[in-house]
């Protein structure tokens, strides 16, 4: 019989939150430990850190004295991996067997750094190749460029991995200090999805003796400069690509920020989603192709929307979006019927994600930092009313908070 998801949650005295989600019928156990620390967190305790340091820690935390911890995961039958985003770093494993042993390895991974001058030097070459790889991807380059317009001179406009130059400023000393400041139990959480015993998980974590290292780090909220006027450049590409960006400066946090993100997504779906008249018109006018998409990001004090795609006419692409992303346009198309559809679509997307232990674990781990229970998302979606969308659109669809960037093919 189909069963709805449940979770067991506890917060240890040291501030480390543990969530376990039993998932009937699935073979795997998936675990993720997440730090509320990402690429934008480069101003700490009044010190400026080199770009890419969060990502470098993610790579190098796998190194232990004389071995790489992925070997231990492999020994216990698990795949392991990690990723860094603008505001989070996550370490994960996926296994069929020995979930408790693998959990101990995961805890060892996040709690015991082994940074040396030698192992840091050898990692630079690997990360530099990763940076070069992304620089050949126009979609990636465009994202960096539009972020640099939205947030001039801000760390969010840097590659998450840093640059060849910033890698040179990263050493085993600043890695360790940054690690100690950010990998604290009260700045991290753990989610395990699968057939495991919650009490056993809790005991293992408690016995791991996860220590706080000193006082909490003083993270300064990055101060944003005025939005850039937009720009374009030529690149060795075949197809032009354009991005339109909207920055929303907001004091919202926690549950309200996540709810706001859902509402902005619904507004954008109504205005330029595949079922919108605007999408059809842009397609008919040959301004966009099927690579057209938008992404709404709301993380800590960053809140922005990037709309992008290949285009044969960058100028018209930008003009169209500028003219049609408005409260007035929304009023015209947001009927009761449309609103009901958009809500249904959001509920469906939530159910689709529940087919994936990975999606459940990662979303839950991230939402914990915003005091949002992943299992209550349907209630959150249902709490949103049509008037909320109209109200919210008035605040973020304005004339003075958008910008653009175009990547154009070099003329041969």
């Amino acid at each position, binding site marked *: 019989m189909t069963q709805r998801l449940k979770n067991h949650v506890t917060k240890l005295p040291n501030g480390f939150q543990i969530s376990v989600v039993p998932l009937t019928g699935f073979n795997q156990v998936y675990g993720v430990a997440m730090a509320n620390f990402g690429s934008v967190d480069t101003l700490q305790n009044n010190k400026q850190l080199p770009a890419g340091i969060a990502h470098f820690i993610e790579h190098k935390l796998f190194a232990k004295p004389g071995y790489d911890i992925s070997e231990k995961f492999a020994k216990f039958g698990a795949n392991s991996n990690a990723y860094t985003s603008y505001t989070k770093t996550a370490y994960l494993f996926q296994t069929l067997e020995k979930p408790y042993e693998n959990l101990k390895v995961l805890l060892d991974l996040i709690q015991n750094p082994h940074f040396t001058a030698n192992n840091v030097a050898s990692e630079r070459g690997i990360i530099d190749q990763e940076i070069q790889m992304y620089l050949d991807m126009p979609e990636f380059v465009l994202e960096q460029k539009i972020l640099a317009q939205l947030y001039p001179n801000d760390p969010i406009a840097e590659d998450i991995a840093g640059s060849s130059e910033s890698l040179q400023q990263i050493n085993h000393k600043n890695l360790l200090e940054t690690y100690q400041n950010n990998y604290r139990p009260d700045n991290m959480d753990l989610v395990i999805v699968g057939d495991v015993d919650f009490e056993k998980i809790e005991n293992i974590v408690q016995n791991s003796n996860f220590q706080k290292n000193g006082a909490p780090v003083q993270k300064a909220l990055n101060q944003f400069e005025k939005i850039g006027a937009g720009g374009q450049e030529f690149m060795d590409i075949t197809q032009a690509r354009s991005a339109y960006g909207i920055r929303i400066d907001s004091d919202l946090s926690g549950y309200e920020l996540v709810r706001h993100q859902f509402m902005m997504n619904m507004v954008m779906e109504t205005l330029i989603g595949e079922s919108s008249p605007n999408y059809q018109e842009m397609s008919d006018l040959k301004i966009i192709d099927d*690579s057209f998409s938008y992404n709404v990001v709301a993380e800590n004090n960053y809140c922005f929307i990037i709309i992008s795609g290949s285009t044969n006419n960058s100028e018209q692409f930008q003009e169209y979006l500028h003219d049609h992303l408005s409260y007035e346009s929304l009023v015209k198309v947001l009927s009761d019927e449309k609103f009901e559809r958009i809500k249904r679509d959001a509920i469906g997307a939530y159910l689709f994600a*529940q*087919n994936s232990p990975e999606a459940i674990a990662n979303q839950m781990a991230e939402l914990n930092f915003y005091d949002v229970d992943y299992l209550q998302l349907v209630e959150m979606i249902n709490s949103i009313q049509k008037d909320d969308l109209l109200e919210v659109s008035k605040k973020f669809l304005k004339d003075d908070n958008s910008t653009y960037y175009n990547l154009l093919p070099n003329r041969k």
Partner: protein
Amino acid sequence: MKQTLAKNVFLNINPIKKFRTIKIQVDFLRPLKKDETTGRRLLANVLSNSTQNYPSFQAINDREMDLYGSEINVYTRNLLNFNDLAFSVEFADPSFLIGSQTQIKDNLDLLGEIIFKPNLKGSNFDETAFSTEKRNLMSNLMSIQDNQDLVSALGLIKLIYKNDPDRQVPIFGDIDQLEHITGEQLLDIYQDVIANDAVIINVVGNVDQDKFLEDIKQSIFGQALKGDRNDLQITFSNFDDLVKQPASETEHKHLNQSRIGLAYETSLSKGVNRLAPQIMNLILGGDDQSQLFLQVREKNSLAYSVSSSYQPLSHLVTIQAGLDANSIDKALHLINEQIAYIKEGKVTDEQIRHAQKVMLTQRKISSDTIQHYIMRGIWETVYPKTLLNDEQFEQELNDLDRAHIAGVAENMHAIAQYQLIGD
């Protein structure tokens, strides 16, 4: 439940309850033909653009949203020596929704509409749908040139299949062919597909089998799939000429990173352990414990990405890496050293145990996805002899030894090398 609805029209229903969604996939199969590849891909896009009753992209998307975000997918892919034109709909299981008793039938009808009720104006495809999708596909094909990993992969495939013209056109089409396709030609292709291709329908998820069978027979599927269809003849490519004279090509582009792609044919003699090539591949470059990862990336810091993969049906091993142009010779040398390491039987017991464990884990974890059951249904219908049951799989895995693995490497013959040099 397995049913044959007509000659070469198969229906498989797997009423598994572990997922939150239900998926219906309908695959239309025929042998790959270079002159049809681009047309079939364009057809996939035009059919998913709009239909008779949902005559615009907007209308079809509205319908998907009404059904709690159903996901329609229409695409072509290579499957053995066949071109597979696949239509699928995945949707929320109604037992998780309130008041959606017709959810399964509604989605079946939507999929049927997309396949069998195209958006025609007179005796041609609707001009907006045709021209929009032709332009979209053209744009996608041009964009491929900006994806260097794909450029490199396609460069290697072109060399591997240099003697097989039907595989020379990539499955997503070719710009020159696309330019010349007319609406009339596309309609001919469509009518041919609907009348003659072999069809496999797979349904996976929480459905009542008898009720679903009844629904599908009463639906447009029951009407449209009554006739007999063409047989599928399985054939395999032959790489003997390339073994004698390997193909190679080097291209230069203004890039930050260079890419290399290598291909090897592994001749598998009868009676040899069927999992040996996959185990060999895992040890060579299949994961982060492999020789390529540890020696080329971790020890020598030459590449961020370096890996190998094995294609069981064509018996090909391919290796791909992204690296600095100056490091290519050193990397090629290191790659050859890792192959020699396996050939010379230096693989450790621990490496073998690890690879066996990974194989078993991958098999079981893949069964946590709905697509695993769809693919299994397709293979059981088209090529059942390639499938091992759990018992056979574990038996063959346990029977593996170092000699089997060295034997695979011993019989690996380089057949192609592609280099994309960034300068």
